[in-house]
């Protein structure tokens, strides 16, 4: 029991929702939902439900519930407008989806309740990796579709003296192909690291109780509590900031695809 309570990696375990004899096998593939899929599904349903509720019976002068939805939408629209200007309009739904999905899954990952701990899908590199590869592929497809062969100018920045240009091109190629890696690893490492730190500090509490006895342990745990609260607050900030960073980097990469060579 104590082992489970203090093991910081236990919360990242992907588990089937159903026992072995009730697995969904389709065409040789096991597509049984896991707790990761469950929390992704809950996040999607939450986003759909929230905006359906927020935008039900919309008014010209928004009331509170409508303002919440409009601030959320306006925030993402502001990112796209700042980075991509008018060209970004067709990509607003995509950026909005990416931002909302990461933000809501990260936020749900910060909560726990009677069901035990919630699961943070973004703490797995498989999830963030697929999202980063999707953005990477989208940038290449849109860049070639819009610019044709001129898309290769993305590797050749303008205004560089010819003598060092070859070196800059090598760096640009390396930097371009490391994009999906950094995009995936940033989100994954931040969520994993934050949750591990949180769990390690929380794990001090049962250890204090074991080491100092019930009364002394509880007294000492009260000293740990302000630290835990501030780390939790920091993690809530990180959960938002990483969604914001992913969205803004997607915008910047799309901007590169639309206007290569700047």
């Amino acid at each position: 029991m104590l082992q489970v309570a203090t093991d910081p990696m236990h919360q990242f375990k992907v588990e089937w929702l159903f026992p072995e004899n009730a697995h969904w096998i389709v065409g040789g593939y096991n597509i049984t939902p896991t707790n990761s899929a469950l929390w992704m599904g809950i996040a999607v349903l939450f986003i759909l439900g929230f905006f359906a509720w927020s935008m039900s019976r919309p008014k010209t002068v928004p009331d509170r519930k409508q303002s919440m939805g409009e601030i959320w939408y306006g925030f993402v629209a502001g990112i796209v407008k700042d980075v991509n200007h008018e060209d970004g309009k067709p990509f607003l739904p995509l950026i909005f989806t990416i931002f909302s999905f990461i933000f809501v899954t990260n936020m749900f990952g910060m909560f726990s309740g009677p069901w035990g701990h919630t699961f943070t899908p973004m703490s797995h590199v498989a999830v963030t990796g697929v999202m980063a590869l999707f953005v990477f592929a989208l940038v290449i497809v849109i860049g070639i579709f819009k610019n044709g062969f001129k898309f290769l100018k993305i590797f050749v920045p303008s205004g560089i003296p010819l003598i060092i240009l070859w070196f800059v091109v090598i760096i640009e190629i390396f930097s371009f192909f490391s994009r999906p890696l950094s995009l995936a690893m940033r989100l994954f490492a931040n969520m994993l690291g934050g949750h591990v730190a949180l769990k390690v500090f929380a794990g001090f509490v049962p250890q204090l109780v074991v080491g100092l006895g019930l009364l002394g342990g509880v007294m000492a745990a009260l000293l740990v509590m302000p630290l835990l609260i501030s780390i939790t607050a920091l993690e809530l900030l990180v959960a938002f900031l990483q969604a914001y960073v992913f969205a803004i980097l997607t915008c910047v990469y799309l901007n590169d695809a639309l206007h290569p060579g700047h």
Partner: protein
Amino acid sequence: MEGLNLIGAGLACVAMGGAGIGVGTIFGNYLSAAIRNPSAAQQQFGNLIFGFAVTEALGIFGLVISLLLIYAAPGASAG
């Protein structure tokens, strides 16, 4: 010679120190510029986050090397 990859994993984490210096420089410079000209600060917030993300990526590359050495190197002890 077992366990040397763990020492390498620790050494790879030095990259995070460099990323820390870089991120500190970015936020420090943003703050000093924002105090000088608060009205222009809001427009540069996106640039701030972009610079922060790109700088942080280098520290994360170090973390990737570290994780590879712990879990994926030949003769890795864990995993």
